[in-house]
């Protein structure tokens, strides 16, 4: 856990409501793992007060990249930052995805919905480094919600795109696309991040097919480093269910541990 009060924006990329900021922060870049996140201070003034959590989207040498959707006050202010502005960030935080040699030359599937793609690019890079054979499913409401499609393709991953309105790729939910494709292949592991209902569906499919699956969860975070107990989710631990701080013990959990919210079955 490092506080870098002066991480410089060295590169910025924008697609309508989605933005990528590359922040020069060598120490955090050195330590960050896929699935971990950083807390970004939006303003030095008192409103908005809290930092905002963003997954590490990629690490490029000395730079930590985040990729986000401008959807509220904090993300909209953040989207207005310019190259050479500096940001006060904390990271790397939380526990990331489970990565090990076990994935070598094995089929793994990554499924991202909307801004949920953010942590999965970094994950795919590392998995590919570990020698895994990767399929990426990437879904959005419409074409504009798939800003990273070219980047994923270019990186050489096996890509599967869907849009709800059919403006690009498979028409329909990414979960349906995935389910259909499962007729043809069976990955040894699934990694996913996106809207809760999407992840809940994937968890169900995975459990049915007995494929281990990991998900990156979200919750409102006060601090990001375990001090405030605001970010809890009910997590299954053996026979018990407890409120667990997802900033510390997550944000990545396995399908067995997660209790999906009402209506997310």
């Amino acid at each position, binding site marked *: 856990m490092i506080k870098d009060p002066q991480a410089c924006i060295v590169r910025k990329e924008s697609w309508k409501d989605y933005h990528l900021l590359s922040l020069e922060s060598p120490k955090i870049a050195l330590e960050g793992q896929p699935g971990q996140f950083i807390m970004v201070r939006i303003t030095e003034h008192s409103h908005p007060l809290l930092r905002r959590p963003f997954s590490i989207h990629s690490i490029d040498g000395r730079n930590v990249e985040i990729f986000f959707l401008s959807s509220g006050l904090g993300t909209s202010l953040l989207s207005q930052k310019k190259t050479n502005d500096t940001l006060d960030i904390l990271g790397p935080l939380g526990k990331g995805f489970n990565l090990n040699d076990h994935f070598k030359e094995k089929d793994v599937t990554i499924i991202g919905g909307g801004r949920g793609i953010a942590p999965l690019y970094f994950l795919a890079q590392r998995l590919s480094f570990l020698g895994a054979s990767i399929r990426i499913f990437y879904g959005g409401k419409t074409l504009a919600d798939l800003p990273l499609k070219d980047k994923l393709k270019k990186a050489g991953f096996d890509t599967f795109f869907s849009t709800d309105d059919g403006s690009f790729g498979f028409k329909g939910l990414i979960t349906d696309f995935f389910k259909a494709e499962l007729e043809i292949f069976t990955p040894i592991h699934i990694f996913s991040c996106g809207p809760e209902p999407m992840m809940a569906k994937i968890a169900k499919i995975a459990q049915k097919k007995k494929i281990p699956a990991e998900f990156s969860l979200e919750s409102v*975070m006060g*601090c990001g480093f375990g*001090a405030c107990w605001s970010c809890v989710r009910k997590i299954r631990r053996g026979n018990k269910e407890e409120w667990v701080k997802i900033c510390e013990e997550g944000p990545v959990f396995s399908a067995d541990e997660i209790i999906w919210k009402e209506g997310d079955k």
Partner: protein
Amino acid sequence: MTDLSIDLGFLKLKNPVIAASGTFGYGLEFSPFINLDKLGGIVVKGLYYSPCQGNPPPRLAETASGLINAIGLQGIGVERFSEEILPRLKDYNTAIIVNVCGEYEEEYVSVVDFLNKKEGISAYELNISCPNTKKGGLCPALSPENTYTVVSLVKKISLRPVITKLSPNVTDIVEIALSAQEAGSDAISLANTFLAMAVDVETRRPKLANIFGGLSGPAIKPIILRMVYQVASCVKIPVIGLGGIMSGSDALEYLIAGAKAVEVGTANLVDPEATIRIIDELEEYCVKNGIKKIEEIVGTLITQ
């Protein structure tokens, strides 16, 4: 060099800056960021006798320059605290204050009784003012009588100084403070959070699962500062001010208004180094203004 130390009578602090309960975990969470030895003190997270699960999420909602929380005092209870946390806190050279909670009056007594036997605690802070406990509300600090009852019960058995943490959700804060003083409280910390709520207009639901929560942060500073000024002019025991302190200047407002020390809450979440920065800023102010000892400025508000 300025002398930043503060003498509360029953306790000497290195400096007036204490980390506030519930925003500083059990203290250890901040050791990756700051040197805990530099702090005036640490108030650890509120402790019930038994572990407590707290409220369901969402537990936090942001508001203009503020924060509503309904953590509901999730915590590990006195036993695990004594076994797992206290021994590790002993390594640090700062005042450790335990924030004591109770669902009923006797629970405060049980917690204090249990902790009396443990080493490494400088004082107790009685949290009689939490607006969002799970059971929806033992909040003795809303009445002078209940304040008196809890404080005097605890004082009877406490082997350590007792700081009573008051609620700002009252008509007459001075009356409650006097009642805590009369019951033997060694100091007053002022204040806990304001009972508050927020609504998500898209879903038409409360932003907190618990509906209500406690408002903290810069938004509330002007109200609590007024209360600290009113109380400090009326009681004889030291007053510790807290509410919305983000900077040295905020802390100074409290000291000048009459607080002998301050606690820093929400600021820790925003900036884990906040307490240290505030201490540095206090020192700078003293140097700049030729103040040799920070105690000199306590209660020096010029009203004429």
